[in-house]
């Protein structure tokens, strides 16, 4: 047991065993337990309208985790993450409505569909780099939107409604919808987060970083850059597919508008604001962007009522993109490492407390 059970200052490790412990102090262990309990109790504490946003944040966090694998870790700019989400959502919808599969099979199927399509779209990455790849994913995004809009199987982009889900005798209904899905999305998010952390600790994860930092050097060291890039695309779009499946069930319907270019840009913004290539950032980014959007919606409603703007101006359509764009630009200019860096600084402060260094 460490000398101080509350802070790490003053604890010296003399054996490897001590160095390898997951929890350095009992305070850390306690905070984890409190955190998990808080997460489980959250639906009981929050008002219903906010819980809806929390669910959205969690679903986006799954997609951003995937985007962080491709863009944050491997450096492949992906402006088509929403399209991969869409692939997952439509695959899930088809599996659920045509094949009558239950949701715990349909959602993973969506993930696999996303991964397959993602690997295929990632194929140009074998020859192309940086900008060209960004443009290739952008093209895929646009072709995807067009294709869905023209396929009768997919209701030509119109709404495909999802069947109602039942787990352990509890039915998803109008009354408990947000709570019901909160408890279904939370374990998926935690599980995929743990998977993310561990995949990046393997040799695949290390080869991603090597390819991002310098792919020629990586090739010289014996890493196959093409294979690393394709693996990254596969994992990233698998996450997107799962997020799409969850989103489809949560929204009760699949509509093409949810998976447009705008959503792709939003996901990229979440990854950037949270901090590229970091686990806490993948949660903080969606939290920030969804909260900002919500706040600007409310603020512009209030401002609109004050008659400040000239006739014919809808404050919400003006202020929301303005705040969204400004937050991206300001983060990139002043805090390129994103909110994850602030989180790191806060943690560092408590680690060193009561000393400053």
């Amino acid at each position, binding site marked *: 047991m460490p000398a101080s059970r509350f802070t790490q200052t003053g604890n010296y490790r003399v054996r490897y065993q001590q160095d390898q412990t997951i929890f350095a102090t009992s305070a850390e262990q306690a905070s984890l337990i409190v955190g998990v309990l808080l997460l489980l109790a959250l639906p009981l504490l929050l008002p219903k309208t906010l819980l809806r946003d929390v669910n959205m944040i969690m679903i986006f966090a799954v997609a951003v985790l995937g985007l962080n694998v491709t863009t944050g870790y491997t450096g492949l700019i992906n402006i088509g993450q929403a399209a991969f989400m869409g692939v997952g959502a439509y695959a899930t919808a088809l599996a659920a409505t045509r094949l009558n599969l239950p949701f715990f099979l349909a959602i993973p199927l969506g993930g696999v569909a996303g991964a397959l399509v993602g690997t295929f779209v990632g194929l140009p990455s074998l020859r192309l780099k940086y900008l*060209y790849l960004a*443009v290739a994913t952008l093209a895929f995004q646009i072709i995807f939107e067009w294709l869905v809009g*023209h396929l009768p199987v997919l209701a030509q982009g119109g709404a495909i409604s999802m069947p109602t889900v039942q787990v352990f005798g509890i039915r998803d209904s109008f009354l408990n919808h947000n709570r019901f899905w909160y408890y279904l999305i939370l374990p998926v998010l935690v599980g995929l987060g743990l998977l993310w952390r561990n995949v990046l600790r393997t040799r695949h994860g290390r080869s991603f970083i090597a390819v991002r930092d310098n792919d020629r050097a990586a090739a010289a060291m014996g890493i196959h850059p093409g294979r690393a890039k394709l693996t990254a695309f596969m994992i990233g779009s698998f996450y997107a597919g799962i997020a799409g499946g969850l989103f489809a069930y949560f929204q009760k319907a699949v509509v093409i508008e949810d998976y447009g270019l705008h959503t792709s840009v939003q996901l990229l*913004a979440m990854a*950037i604001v949270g901090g590229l290539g970091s686990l806490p950032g993948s949660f903080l980014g969606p939290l920030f962007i969804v909260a900002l959007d919500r706040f600007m919606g409310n603020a512009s409603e209030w401002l609109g009522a004050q008659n400040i703007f000239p006739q014919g*101006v809808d404050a919400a359509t003006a202020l929301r*993109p303005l705040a969204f*764009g400004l937050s991206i*630009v300001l983060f990139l200019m002043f805090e*390129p490492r994103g909110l994850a860096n602030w989180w790191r600084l806060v943690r560092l402060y408590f680690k060193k407390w009561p000393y400053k260094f």
Partner: protein
Amino acid sequence: MELLPQLLLAGVVIGSIYALAALGFVLIYKSSRVINFAHGQIIATGAFIAFALTQRGLNFWLAGLIAMLITFGLGMLIERVFLRRMVGEPIISVIMVTIGLSSVIEGLIHLTPYGAGNFSFTTPAVLSGEGLSVLGTQLSRTQLAGVLTALALLGGFTYFFNKSTLGITMRAVADDQMAAMSVGTSVERVFALAWAAAALTAAAAGVILGLMSGLTLGGLAGIGLKVFPVVILGGLDSVVGAIVGGMLIGVLENLSAGYLDGLVPGGGTREVFPFIVLIAVLLLRPYGLFGTKEIERV
């Protein structure tokens, strides 16, 4: 066969606007290796400034000219405030800054009364007369004027790059920044100029497009996406490529609308065909028709 010449002509008309839009894009990429996702929004800004000026009772031609001058300054300002800090940052950051800027500009346009509506210029008297008959199809005077203006601007810039000292300086910076700096060129000034010139051509494209097919934010900003197939086909860093690519994409788009729409349920191949061309070009010839091929050795 009435259809083919009609499609070809319509393609050339819209293609010249694509070329003009792509020119601005190439100008920025050529000098500073920045892909500008906000180009469509700058096009819209230029068009709406001109429109706002004509609303105040200004002559159309004068309004267009002033709009181009204002966006010239605006481009310089954007480079100065946002892009200058990003020199040396990873490409993803630079791209995201321009994506963020596109959102900011769109929000700002929505703050004016021009964000949501559908407007059109009052056509100047010179352009409202009888059109010209080419290859058995009618070409209106506005279309003709648009193509001629676009070609004049494109020709002017090509001449500028090949003959003037400033143009050669910009090419030198594009070629090798380090070398250009070491012989005393101000790279910063070149970047600012490239952004300013790009914004100027964007405003011109916006005004021409507004004159031909009306002013909506979505329609004008949408040109920003059409630029990608054009520049990938022509080559990201080639002015000639922008011109040829613009015309080719314009023509291909119209041909697909004319001949493929009947085969596809729902039609609308016009929107997607350029992007299919884009993917094909990326797979076969990533540096485009006229782009510089980058050679890598491990």
